[in-house]
């Protein structure tokens, strides 16, 4: 589904990513592991077109996206949940969710399934996004990305700074989504979390992919060492 070849990314004049190759197959959950500051988030941002990517190719379902602006990338079917959630703090939960529909030009309705996945949101529809707890914001951010039924869901460290019970909830949701056939790309530095949910893994260090494979065949010790925090 998503094919990334030879991707380079810059911040200002400093190179963050060097020649990244990465594939996400349809219906699979792919995890990108790595320590703080190796460029994982930058990588996701470069998929979304938020940083400078002078070289390389990003293909979603054989459609080249590298020269497209961010919003067309989103519209071609990528649901992005950034690190730190990036909820619109001064808008209500309902408004935040509706914004998720912008990918389809704001048309459509929020399917009730969203509230099944995240029952907590239903109770809080009129609350300001900024007043939610971190975990709730994370759920809202995922829900917001899901309302438009994206072909590919991208999650940036969905567990960071979130209390354990909600991490469990999120894990369950991801598995549910997988069952429904969603394709998901997760960035994590927290190994235990992905062991149970991901199919494929990549490990990034210093802007390069240093290991990849199936999660089922992964040498946990070795990877843990590579991404040790």
């Amino acid at each position: 589904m998503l094919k990334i070849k030879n991707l380079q990314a810059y911040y200002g004049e400093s190179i963050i990513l060097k020649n990244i190759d990465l594939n996400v197959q349809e219906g699979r959950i792919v995890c990108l592991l790595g320590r703080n500051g190796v460029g994982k988030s930058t990588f996701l941002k470069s998929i979304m077109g938020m940083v400078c990517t002078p070289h390389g190719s990003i293909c979603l379902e054989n459609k080249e996206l590298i020269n497209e602006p961010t919003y067309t990338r989103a519209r071609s079917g990528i649901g992005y949940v950034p690190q730190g959630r990036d909820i619109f703090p001064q808008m209500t939960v309902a408004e935040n969710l509706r914004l998720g529909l912008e990918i389809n030009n704001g048309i459509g309705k929020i399917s009730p399934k969203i509230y099944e996945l995240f029952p907590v949101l239903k109770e809080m529809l009129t609350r300001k996004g900024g007043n939610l707890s971190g975990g709730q914001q994370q759920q809202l951010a995922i829900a917001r990305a899901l309302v438009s039924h994206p072909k590919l869901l991208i999650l940036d460290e969905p567990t960071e700074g979130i209390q354990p019970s909600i991490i469990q909830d999120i894990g369950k949701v991801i598995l549910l989504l997988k069952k429904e056939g969603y394709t998901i790309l997760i960035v994590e530095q927290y190994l235990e979390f992905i062991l149970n949910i991901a199919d494929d893994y990549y490990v990034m260090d210093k802007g390069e992919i240093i290991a990849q494979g199936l999660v089922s065949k992964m040498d946990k010790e070795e990877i843990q060492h590579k991404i040790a925090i």
Partner: protein
Amino acid sequence: MNTILEIKDLIISFDGFYAVNNVNTKINKGEIRFFIGPNGAGKTTLLDAICGRIKPQHGSIIFNNNKNVLHYAEHELVNIGIGRKFQVPSVFTSLSVYENMEISVVKNRGIFSAIFNNITKSQREKINTILELVDLFDYRYRKASELSHGQKQWLEIAMLLVQDLQLILLDEPVAGMGRKETTKTGELLQKIAAHCTVIVVEHDMQFVREYASMVTVLHEGAVLDEGSVNHIQNNPKVIDVYLGRGGENCA
């Protein structure tokens, strides 16, 4: 009496949200104290309070047994011996490395001295020594904007060092650094701790493990646990909220 900083019953709230909720802790001279905790646990807010940026609703912060930090304006803290480094490196980008240091080294920070006095030879030597220490000596005539991220962080630390402080607050000093740079920063911290006390807010647990003498775990604005790294690592509650992050139990 080797307590350098004592935080008593500190409460800070924004619009009814308790960012820091009744925090009590003591920091001893010569310590490298780490504050850890998940995002939003109130670590940065705590630092802000110590350096006078935020006025707490309740409580006190006593420095050197007799000075209540809360009574000082932000710019006066350096004079009593507290310095701070921000999370985003905030060096003066259009000045050279040397000029950055020059601004920091001076003791008399009044305006007339700034107009008429240039820095002394001993101060210049001091700057050079510290620049050597952080490996920026060769870069001293470069503009700070031309430094790499890590170098900027070191420059900011160097700017603190040159001020002869007793307490240094560092907000995520190794964020965005590679492993090598991180190690170097850690070594730097140890050198610093020889002269003064250091408080660090950090996420990088490996870094914490290697360099912390004491760790305070914050959670939702309150102190969850405090102690050595070993002690912390084995506290199930801490594992729950921070270290372990509860992933094993998912699914």
